[in-house]
């Protein structure tokens, strides 16, 4: 049964990717990308990777198509048919890489085997001892936020860097973080969508908080929560226009929050340094090691959530400001 689902999902993935090559026109490509994201998220669920599936659904099927669509609104949806295109070289390169990859799989442990080396060395400790050492059921969160917390700090920094980079690239001349003016434009109103969204947005934000603080017990955590929170705000912005969402959450505040999230994470780690323990060692936070882990994980997940939400909102602001500039 599981095999059947696997094969169905994989063949749908292949079909999506092939049609992406065949299709011209960017809007259709973006829809296919979104479908690809959703399909791979479903595939991750069948592979037991629920946290990853959650993230991929939010990112691959949500945020990245949104950003792509906003870009296409700026640059146009036409993908031109090239006059002459050499496909021999790309084909050769892809074939060589593909063959090398397939050769690489030949000595891999077979799919699904329980005695693969990856399950013998480092991972067993996470599965067997994280219950006592960290004290939370979601092993992925334990590894993410404690054993390999430094990687996650890097991840937050990557997101922060992306926010800084997008502002730096897209900043309109002469203003940083200023609120765009209304310019008296009338947005096309859509009563049904507006009313329904108005009802749904509070629940989206509430759901984000649930995901934020429930990450220790089930799939979820700071990153997913941040994405959901940001999408609530972005929905509001799409419906009521950039100026009104900027009045609710001004751009300078969002930028500052992005930096504060990173600082919250990093300073939680620095606390340990002051006590002479290694960076990111949570045991200084409380006398009981499990409580300390819990406190540390909650603090850094909050930092992740704040930074992710603010950076995604910032990126949305930057693109939306360009859009309204272009429409003028």
């Amino acid at each position, binding site marked *: 049964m599981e095999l059947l689902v696997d094969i169905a999902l994989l063949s749908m993935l292949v079909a999506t990717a092939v049609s992406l090559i065949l299709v011209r026109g960017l809007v259709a490509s973006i829809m296919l990308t979104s479908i690809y994201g959703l399909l791979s998220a479903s595939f991750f669920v069948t592979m037991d990777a629920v946290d990853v599936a959650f993230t991929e659904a939010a990112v691959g099927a949500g945020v990245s198509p949104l950003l792509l669509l906003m870009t296409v609104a700026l640059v146009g949806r036409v993908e031109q048919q090239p006059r002459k295109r050499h496909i021999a070289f790309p084909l050769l390169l892809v074939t060589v890489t593909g063959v090398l990859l397939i050769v*690489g799989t030949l000595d891999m442990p077979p799919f699904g085997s329980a005695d693969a080396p990856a399950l013998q060395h480092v991972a067993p400790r996470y599965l067997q001892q994280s219950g006592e050492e960290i004290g939370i059921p979601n092993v992925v969160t334990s590894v993410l936020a404690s054993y390999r917390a430094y990687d996650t700090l890097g991840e937050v920094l990557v997101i922060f*860097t992306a926010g800084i980079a997008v502002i730096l690239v897209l900043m309109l001349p002469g203003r940083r973080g200023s609120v765009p003016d209304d310019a008296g434009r009338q947005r096309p109103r859509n009563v049904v969508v507006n009313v329904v969204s108005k009802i749904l947005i509070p629940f989206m934000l509430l759901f984000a908080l649930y995901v934020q603080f429930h990450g220790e017990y089930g799939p979820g955590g700071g990153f997913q929560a941040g994405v959901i929170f940001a999408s609530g705000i972005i929905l509001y912005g799409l419906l009521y226009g950039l100026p009104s969402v900027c009045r609710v959450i001004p751009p300078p505040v969002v930028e500052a929050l992005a930096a504060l999230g990173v600082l919250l994470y990093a300073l939680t780690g620095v606390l340990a340094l002051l006590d002479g323990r290694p960076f990111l060692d949570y045991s200084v936070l409380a006398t009981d090691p499990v409580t300390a882990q819990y406190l540390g994980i909650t603090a850094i997940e909050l930092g992740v959530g704040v930074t992710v939400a603010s950076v995604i909102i910032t990126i949305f602001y930057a693109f939306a400001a360009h859009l309204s500039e272009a429409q003028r």
Partner: protein
Amino acid sequence: MLSHLPILPVLLPLLGAPICALLRKPVAAWLFACTVALLTFAAAIALLAQTWQQGVLSYALGGWAAPWGIEYRIDLLNGLVLTLVSGMASAVLLGGRASIWRETPEEKRSLFLVAFLLCLAGLQGIAATGDAFNLFVFLEISSLSTYALVATGRDRRALVAAYNYLIMGTIGATFILIGIGFIYMLTGTLNMMDLAQRLPALTESRTAFAGFVFIIVGVCLKLALFPLHLWLPGAYTHASSMVTVFLAATATKVALYVLIRFSFSVFRLEFSTLALPLETVFLTLGIVAVFAGSLVAIYQPDLKRGLAYSSVAQIGYMVIGVGVGTVIGLQAALVHLFNHALMKGALFMALAAVVYRVGDGKFSSLRGIGREMPLTCACMLLGGLSLIGVPGTAGFISKWYLVVAVADREQWVLVALILAGSLLTAVYIWRLVETVYLGVPGPRQVPDSPAGRAEAPPGLLAVSVVLALANVYFGFDTRLPVEAASGAAESLFAAGQP
């Protein structure tokens, strides 16, 4: 606090970047960024001194022991790279304010500095970590900030250069990710030392072979080794001057460090040479890079682009050193890594000072500038001489070690080719000298350029002079780079013995 020294060169810029983002006044951000860079530099020097005395330092992040948690493992090689990168960052920030202010609009300045600090944090993180996946994460921090920094160049071509760099850099990073995945599936660990212990048993495995190839190709993309260098000339040419100085002096050096780390410590030499004809590949690509890069450099109408192609050639020399595959060869590569950062730092820094005056780096704009900016151009000349490898400069030392290393393997053709490559360097440096000192100045278009003598602003000039003098200093007193390099090379080889 001394026991936390391994983390400080990374932690300081990492903490500094978000704080810097909170500062809105560009001058305040600049002062803060300078402080952070200098503190980082100081920490890196202290760390280098400590590794010199105590050998390898291990630091378990989060308090979790090595294969389960992430480990920082600092040996002499890490210490050398950390010091080099943070030193160049301090030099660029301290001296480059005038240039950054000139080339970046006011509202972008403080964010430019934030991106700069992020880039520094990323590069330092790559150079310090002992965990393969952590390396990937910090690689992406440095790459993303570099794309943004390149895109701030004034020319619209900077945007295209940044985009091309983004595509090629991401392909490279994804290849590295594939490679790390393969070796993780085989060994079950991500810690580099742990990998090094487990991989020798797997020399026959095709998965390990494929993983190794993907990592090497990915790193070579980042390193801009010929023929994967296509992103480099555009990025160096169109980025703003200070970004070029910093990138040329550090980014490719860190990539070379990663190449050495993976092919010598993680995969061990026996594996590397067994799995791939690595020596032949590196020697061939290195020598082709030297000639292709130098020949193209000769014909560039723009000095900045010429020096960028020269970087492609110089990377070739370093890769030859790696490809020789002996202790002396590796030592030569590392010495050149250090010295090349000084040469290109001096050259691009002096060029930035000139660009500050005349607006661009085209040869036609540089005619006769030597009479107007004698001191700056003297720095450029020193950097150029060092690039050729004239005795008495740092460049001579690294060429010397390289030639000795190759001669030691009795590959006389290669020795001849390396010397011929130096001649090509002399050709394009001569072209520079001819234009700068013998050319007749044309009409200049920069508004505030006074006639007659007009040196660059003091900061730019001072740093140019310091870097140029460093080229001379390290041409005589070779202890620091040579001893650090030989120590690092020996420890890499010692680790390679079972």
